[in-house]
């Protein structure tokens, strides 16, 4: 089936998108499938920094005028669709692009699904798998109408070693042919009276750190965050948080781990005062080793931990800090 993957080149995260989509395609498409990559962008794209999986046989680059007007991106995608008529369109996991998947499908009278983990073609049906019920259950859906527009689940940037080809330089080919496509993609933007952009100063590294301390509502209050910052720093790790912690503004939103935040896969994750709701654990379950500290013996977090302490988290954190300080 003719397949394309669609990338938003207007944001710095294009590298992460490419990595996610590469890994998704490797996991879900046979070796000899050919996939086109469509990059929509308002800026120049440095292709030397992006890797493309061996599936990608051609890149189509479409210039758009804006970074943020979804309606313009939709128009560009539909114009390209009319030219190429793909049957499967794969979008990244970020909310702006997953929104494009849904709206493009709607306009083309196709089907859409957001957060897809896996796809297969079985008895003439295109079937997708995704998490539902707040990440507690897995659902399979038949997508009824073509084109099938899916946005992939978060976390494909962290693949298990055997299926990832990130380090296998041979698997990545040299840059496929890049074709620049020019359309009149302008849409009416009269409704936008003015706009400004600001780049969020995301503290680097929570996504890539080898050690992460993840704190939950059980730490008690904003004032306690410094204690866990200290603990994380002594382990040369980064501090992340569950949803209530960022919702209470104890920590910035960028530190959120889980279904609506970051999916991390450190060597060591220490989960402190988190209950272990599925929407949170999906964010840490790829960690190599998990330590959980919670005062409730029945807390679900213990089910995904390798080692656990059932005790008051502040006492344990303080004792660990003393130990780690003594080490230096």
């Amino acid at each position, binding site marked *: 089936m003719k397949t394309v993957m669609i990338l938003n080149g207007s944001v710095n995260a294009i590298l992460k998108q490419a990595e996610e989509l590469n890994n998704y395609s490797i996991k879900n498409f046979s070796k000899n499938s050919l996939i086109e990559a469509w990059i929509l962008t308002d800026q120049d794209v440095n292709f030397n920094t992006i890797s493309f999986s061996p599936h990608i046989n051609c890149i189509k680059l479409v210039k758009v005028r804006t970074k943020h007007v979804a309606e313009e991106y939709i128009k560009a995608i539909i114009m390209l669709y009319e030219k190429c008529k793909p049957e499967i369109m794969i979008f990244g996991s970020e909310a702006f692009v997953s929104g494009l998947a849904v709206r493009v499908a709607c306009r083309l009278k196709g089907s859409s699904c957001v957060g897809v983990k896996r796809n297969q073609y079985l008895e003439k049906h295109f079937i997708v798998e995704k998490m539902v019920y707040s990440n507690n*259950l897995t659902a399979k*859906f038949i997508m009824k109408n073509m084109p099938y527009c899916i946005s992939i689940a978060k976390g494909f940037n962290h693949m298990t070693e055997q299926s990832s080809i990130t380090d296998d330089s041979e698997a990545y080919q040299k840059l496929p042919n890049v074709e620049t496509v020019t359309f009149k993609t302008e849409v009416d933007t009269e409704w936008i009276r003015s706009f400004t952009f600001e780049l969020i100063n995301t503290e680097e590294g929570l996504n890539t750190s080898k050690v992460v301390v993840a704190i939950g509502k059980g730490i008690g209050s904003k004032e306690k965050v410094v204690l866990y910052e200290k603990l994380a720093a002594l382990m040369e790790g980064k501090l992340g948080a569950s949803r209530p912690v960022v919702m209470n503004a104890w920590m910035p939103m960028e530190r959120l781990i889980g279904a609506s935040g970051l999916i991390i896969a450190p060597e060591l994750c220490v989960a402190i005062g988190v209950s272990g709701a599925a929407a949170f654990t999906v964010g840490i379950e790829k960690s190599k080793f998990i330590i959980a500290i919670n005062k409730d013996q029945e807390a679900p977090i213990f089910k995904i931990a390798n080692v656990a302490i059932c005790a008051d988290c502040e006492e344990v954190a303080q004792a660990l800090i003393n130990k780690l300080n003594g080490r230096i």
Partner: protein
Amino acid sequence: MNILVCFKNVPDLDALSVNDWLIEDHFQVDTSYVRTMLNPYDESALELTLKLGDAEKNDDFKLTALTVGTSHLDKVLKTLYALKYDLGVRLDCKSDIRFNPCFVSRMICNYVKNIKNHQVIILGSQSNVGDNAKTPLLVAEGLGIPCITSVIGIKLAEQKDCLSITSKIDDLIIEQIVKAPFVLAVGDVPTSYIRVPTLKDRIQYKEKEIKVFTLEDLEIKENDVEEENDTQLIELSYEKNGRNCVFIQGHHSSEKANVLYKEYLMERIK
């Protein structure tokens, strides 16, 4: 300005334990014994809109809260009345619409088109059970108006019929003054828990009528429910790959912390 906030009341799925996840006929999962709550994203949408109302002195500023479902939702709408929503609307529906955002959005669109027009329509980005993350986008498409996703701030703007909207795309924060009509999909907004009504207001608004519209009122046929859907659920399963957790024993926290440090931590942090 005329604002419609669409919300869903959802079961607190965090309260279900491993053995509660039983999948019954027609892919039903019994969650009736856990408490229900406002879907967190919709809760943020409702509170952001109330804050907007706090700042707006103009009498033309009207807030409507809308939900889809059966009469048990009326008590939630009454609470929203007590919080000064001007109108509470329920689109009556008994069908299984968990995985059918196409149908839900059609109902909302028909309400806006046929019954009462609104300049701004605000919804949460996603809600649990279905986790479809499609409804706001499909409402925008159905009405043929723009949609801003991952909204994290809504403020009044000086220009007529305009709002100032803050939203996110990856690591970009966008602040724009936009003219209605449009749809907003609200994302993760810190400190946007919904306020609690006073007892006095609860009592005062207890009897205020909820506007209920049937599928017929919305000119939708019952048969359309499944036809409208662009996907079909064929399997629902529960699988949990847990780890074998070792509990560290000890008389007190510092003793346990010592064991943790010596046996597990030291080797993992150089």
